[in-house]
């Protein structure tokens, strides 16, 4: 009954990051970030945007692109598959910090009467996943992970687990973090002063038969996952017996404290390139992995987030993605 044999494949990706167009751009040195690139949220239009928070809007942009690239949306951008067995998994640590802080400030200044009733749903941190589900009618399992530095990879893991356990046939995964004053206040109070990432990345994961049955072309296979106390342990756990690593997406804080955990692989440091990405990092890394695996490159991709013991963090997570072969 467990469906443990069901392979989980990636069939689509989307990005909502200013200045980033293609997943392949993630593998190149970033352009000059001082160039004013258009805000990706401007790609949304229509009713109901006014009361959605920035994190939700960023996730809607990336999620739509992921679903489109997976071939799961019709011409009118509505879902082309029944929603009952489609899940949503979102990772965000700081997504609704702005709503919470703005509200508590309004109460201090104007009592409860100063609050805006329409912001009530956004005080609950699952609001992003809830809007993704409502927008596309996805009625399967709906999860939000707010799990620290590893959260984006944890989200990919839970999406794969929902599919392996048979709770869903396909899952939209999004990792998103907004940049705003309350976010900067909380981060700087914790000694993090770099300009934070502002954006979203999304993936479509499917059970292999669900993808093949509708004629979709898998772009990558989601392999093993581990969340362990140290990066070395997590990496050893997922890479044992796997295809040699061709690309290593390193955790935030670069490769210094992580040393020689992986040797001989090309390295990409997305946190340095695009700002500390917190709960979005792991999903962003997996989008980079898809670009690598669909390109002229060799080897599997190792995505890692969190550095665990080495950085005084609670854990490090690792996921392996490999190229698809029938």
């Amino acid at each position, binding site marked *: *009954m*467990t469906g*443990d044999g069901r392979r989980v494949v990636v069939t689509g990706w989307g990005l909502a990051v200013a200045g980033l167009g293609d997943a392949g751009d993630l593998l190149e040195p970033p352009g000059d970030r001082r160039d004013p690139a258009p805000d990706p949220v401007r790609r949304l239009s229509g009713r109901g945007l006014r009361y959605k928070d920035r994190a939700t809007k960023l996730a809607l942009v990336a999620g739509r692109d992921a679903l489109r690239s997976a071939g799961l949306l019709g011409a009118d951008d509505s879902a082309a598959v029944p*929603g009952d067995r489609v899940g949503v998994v979102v990772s965000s*640590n700081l997504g*609704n*910090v702005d*709503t*919470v*802080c703005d*509200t*508590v*400030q*309004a*109460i*201090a200044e104007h*009592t*409860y009467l100063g*609050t*805006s*009733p329409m912001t*009530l*749903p956004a*005080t*609950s*941190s*699952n*609001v992003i996943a*809830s809007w993704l*589900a*409502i927008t*596309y*009618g*996805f*009625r*399967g*399992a*709906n*999860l*939000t*992970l*707010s*799990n*620290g530095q590893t*959260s984006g990879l944890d989200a990919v893991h*839970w999406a794969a*687990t929902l599919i392996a*356990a048979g*709770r869903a046939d396909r899952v939209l995964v999004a990792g998103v973090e907004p940049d705003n004053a*309350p976010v900067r206040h*909380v*981060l700087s*109070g*914790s000694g*993090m002063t770099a300009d934070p990432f502002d954006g979203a990345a999304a993936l479509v994961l499917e059970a292999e038969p669900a993808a093949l049955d509708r004629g979709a072309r898998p772009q990558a296979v989601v392999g093993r996952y581990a969340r*362990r*106390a140290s990066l070395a342990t997590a990496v050893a756990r997922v890479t044992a017996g796997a295809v040699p690593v061709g690309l290593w997406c390193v955790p935030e804080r670069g490769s210094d404290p992580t040393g020689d955990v992986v040797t001989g692989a090309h390295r990409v440091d997305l946190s340095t390139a695009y700002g500390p990405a917190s709960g979005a990092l792991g999903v962003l890394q997996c989008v980079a992995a898809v670009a690598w695996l669909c390109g002229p490159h060799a080897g599997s991709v190792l995505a890692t987030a969190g550095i665990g013991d080495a950085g005084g*963090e*609670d*854990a490090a997570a690792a996921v392996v993605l490999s190229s698809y072969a029938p």
Partner: protein
Amino acid sequence: MSWIVTGMGALASVGADADAMVSALIAGRTGLAELRGFDRSRFRARVAYEIDDRPEPGADEPLRATRWLVEAVRAAAADAGLGADLSEVPVLVGTTLRELRSVELCWRDKVPFDVHDLHFGTALRRHFGAADTHTVVNACSASLYALALGADLLDLGHADTVVVAGVDTLTESTYGLLDRCYPEAPDRVRPFDRNRRGMLQGEGAVAVVLRREADGPGPAPRIHARVRGVAVNCDAYHPSAPEAKSIAAVTAEAHRRAGVTPADIDLVMLHGTGTPLNDEAESEAVSAVFAGVEPMPYMTAIKSMTGHTAGASGLHSLVAAVLAMRRGVVPPVLGLTDPVEAVSGFRLVRGAAVRPPEPLRLAQIDSFGFGGLNAVAVVESVEHAGSAA
């Protein structure tokens, strides 16, 4: 597959451990009190179901949720014979508001707060050496949703033992916005009563230890209960209003996963928040699922005494169901004096706890949250197991 509960820990406004909490519920004691941690002058509603552990009245401190979670996990792990080393045990924590109360204090009052404490993994690592930890932010059904994930991990062979927990505090932002949204300030949580005015938040934490039944209790001295099945879904309908047909669907799926029929259920722990929207959707779904079942199962709603403990509430109801079945007593829906028409056929326990003449074997736990997140579990007593399916 079935799973067994080998350890339980809980705390709430009405009791500092699982037994004390359930004894209070059976005695019909409420945790309702004057609002303790916020400046009352900023609100119209001035009551809640808080844990009374602040350093002084009117002053709040950060990291209370983390403290309760650690207490509940420690109690459940000890109960299951695991000790304080959870380095090889996944810990899944369901919550609505995480440590967002600490974020509020950090932003408004400049109280120091480390962003690494926004998720609970940091404290779980420090106290238990746990590293495979997951903060699942699934609104008010979070801990029962996490129970489904824990069962899946066991089912897939990813772990032999899993700790599933839930925790929530009040935050001023949610409390103030609820105050803003209700036409009248709620005086207390009155599920399914004509005079209900809405939901009031409660505080608490809860944890259970889950294993595959086939593996037995391991180091635990006893089995508390058998989890027969947990179903989850999403309305995909509205960010805060629930949908009856989706609740009915998730209930039917829970019964199917558990291999039971509605007539097998002896006790329903209703979500019962005392908001008109929840109560109408839930009563419509329960009516549809249990249509033709005679007599209806016993039903209760413990939020009438604990308040809405949000991310903890699903497992709070589960622990209450397990101990209620063991003791053969169903707690009342406190303050339910004038039931709405929609529940006229329901066997709701009112006034005082009841002791049914027949054993209580199978309980259904309802847990629903913002975003249309629904989770329903079916739990079987191990004291009176046997005849059902």
